[in-house]
């Protein structure tokens, strides 16, 4: 027993090394041997077009700044395409491997940052470290699915920058947070759902922060829009197939471009706003992503990777639980998704409906937990606003856990920044 305890203590102490070693086989297992096995080639294509390194591809008529009207389906913001350019300067295989390695390693950086965020929120160090090791063990495979299997650099950038923004907010560095969120939005428009984080900036600076975010998002797109005014319209006109295991398919709805996408985005922003406004900012990733997964015509597995990261942020900072329950639940969903074959336009089978129902139940369950729909009143983000959790389930909760402490850390009500 003592031996086990000692081993566990060492494991917790060496958690980042262990998680790095845990990531290696997952990355190796998931990295597609075939260059067409992931979506990375779209990044290669875009990077080659933007850099003028157009070996094997046809340069775009009118120049690279017309890329989004030339290929509206690209849906990868300029920061991600530009970030992919260095991978195209030498051997393409080496570039692909290097991109995967960097993206996989980012999860260790994220875990370090998340742990720091938890510490800055005044959360108990022992619990935080244990949570990092256990939750990280589930997060790492999910992250490798995104980073090494599908290789969606754009999603990696968005998720990383959002965590960076949270960290910067805790450091009271509102402008860095605003810049990070702006780049995230420029990379993927749905990252706008995370912009409500800026509600945590003191009122006097909030409008500056929002303007800075808008500016830092716009500056990436400006050259493209100036060169080709149809850029935004073209990118928003893409119609996606409805996956047979999606909520939309289950409800008999078909996807459509334009308004439906805007509605989805509005719902994501609304739930992000609600999460922050009600003092549940640690739900800023998981809640909008859950809404996205519930309302999207497609059900790509990497959506769930983001969900697992968001769930881990909640478990680590927003929850009082000792174990990362939502992380495990969302990782289990990802595992199930990876086991059931889904093909748009392929044969219909019961597994699709089963997966759709499980996904809906899991996502609604997660939303209910993080937004606490069962509660009469959520704790106030700013104590002066009234409301608060006192008197309900926070009573008797071990200190200094919980979202009240976290919100205080972000809003400056506490000076504890260990």
């Amino acid at each position, binding site marked *: 027993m003592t031996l086990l305890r000692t081993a566990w203590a060492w494991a917790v102490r060496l958690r980042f090394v262990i998680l790095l070693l845990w990531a290696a086989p997952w990355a190796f297992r998931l990295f*597609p*041997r*075939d*260059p*067409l*096995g992931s979506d990375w*080639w779209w990044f*290669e*294509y875009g990077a080659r077009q933007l850099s003028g390194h157009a*070996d*094997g*591809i*046809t340069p775009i008529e009118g120049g690279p700044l017309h890329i989004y009207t*030339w*290929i*509206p*389906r690209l849906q990868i913001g300029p920061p991600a395409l530009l970030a992919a350019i260095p991978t195209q300067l030498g*051997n*393409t*295989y080496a570039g692909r491997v290097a991109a995967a390695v960097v993206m996989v390693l980012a999860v260790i950086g994220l875990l370090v940052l998340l742990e720091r965020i938890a510490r800055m929120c005044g959360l108990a160090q022992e619990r935080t470290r244990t949570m990092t090791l256990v939750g990280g063990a589930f997060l790492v495979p999910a992250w490798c699915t995104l980073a090494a299997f599908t290789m969606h650099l754009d999603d990696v950038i968005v998720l990383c920058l959002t965590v960076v923004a949270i960290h910067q907010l805790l450091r009271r560095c509102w402008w860095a947070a605003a810049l990070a969120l702006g780049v995230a939005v420029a990379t993927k428009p749905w990252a706008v759902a995370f912009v409500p984080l800026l509600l945590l900036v003191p009122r006097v600076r909030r409008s500056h922060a929002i303007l800075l975010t808008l500016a830092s998002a716009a500056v990436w797109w400006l050259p493209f829009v100036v060169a080709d005014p149809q850029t935004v319209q073209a990118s928003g006109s893409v119609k996606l197939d409805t996956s047979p295991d999606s909520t939309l398919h289950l409800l008999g709805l078909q996807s459509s471009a334009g308004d439906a996408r805007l509605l989805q985005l509005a719902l994501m922003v609304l739930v992000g706003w609600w999460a922050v406004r009600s003092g549940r900012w640690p739900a800023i990733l998981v809640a909008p992503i859950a809404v996205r997964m519930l309302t999207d015509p497609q059900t790509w597995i990497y959506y769930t990777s983001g969900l697992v990261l968001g769930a881990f942020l909640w478990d680590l900072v927003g929850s009082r639980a000792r174990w990362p329950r939502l992380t495990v639940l969302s990782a289990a969903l990802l595992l199930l998704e990876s086991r059931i*074959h889904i*093909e748009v*336009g392929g*044969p*219909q*089978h*019961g*597994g699709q409906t089963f997966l759709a129902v499980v996904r809906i139940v899991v996502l609604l369950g997660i939303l209910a937990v993080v937004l606490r729909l069962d509660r009469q009143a959520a704790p106030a983000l700013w104590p002066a606003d009234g409301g608060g959790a006192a008197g309900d389930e926070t009573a008797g909760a071990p200190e200094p856990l919980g979202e009240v402490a976290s919100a205080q850390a972000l809003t400056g009500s506490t000076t504890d920044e260990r």
Partner: protein
Amino acid sequence: MSASGPVVRMTAVGRSYGHGAQRVVALHDVDLDLYAGEVVALVGRSGSGKSTLCHVLAGVEPATSGSVEVDGRSLPDEPDWQDVALLPQRLGLAPELTVAENAFLPCWVRGENGEAAVLDLLGLADVAGRRAGATSLGEQQRTAIARVLSTGPRVVVMDEPTGHQDDDNVERVRRALDLARSRGAAVLVATHDERIVRSADRVVRLESGRVVA
């Protein structure tokens, strides 16, 4: 066919969808060997399991039972295009990219150049610079065939490669199959086209997911 062993060995391969009362069995214990430098025509009525067999061999769908081996090794979940290349019925082209970009996509992601002769062979040279989405369905299908052949794969799997072709272009597809055969590929072609069947080295018939001949 060949003194050496088969390139592909499918043993008791089964594929089903769903569970319980909703279970649909698409393939029952299929045994099939493919050898280097042979073209095997896979025939059978619609719904007999031809496309499923193609997908399983190409690693697009997993077998629910049995095994698939290529060169004596189990087929990975995502086989390399140089090992197994598939022409699916849905083609899977990027309509915004040109015909040449689509055809040589497996090449340029490897840092290699495509073989323009393949486009000539398939009658695509004149539309090589045109966006795939702006070409006819027949041209799109031949573009997808060119993509299959572009890296010289060990195993070529084609699902109805003449479905959108007129008589002249069926002949082009037949010549493309000959090219794959001459390069030593093991070729499996699911087809209803008698001309393709006649040019095959062997014919395998599927009925209700079972090999019957």
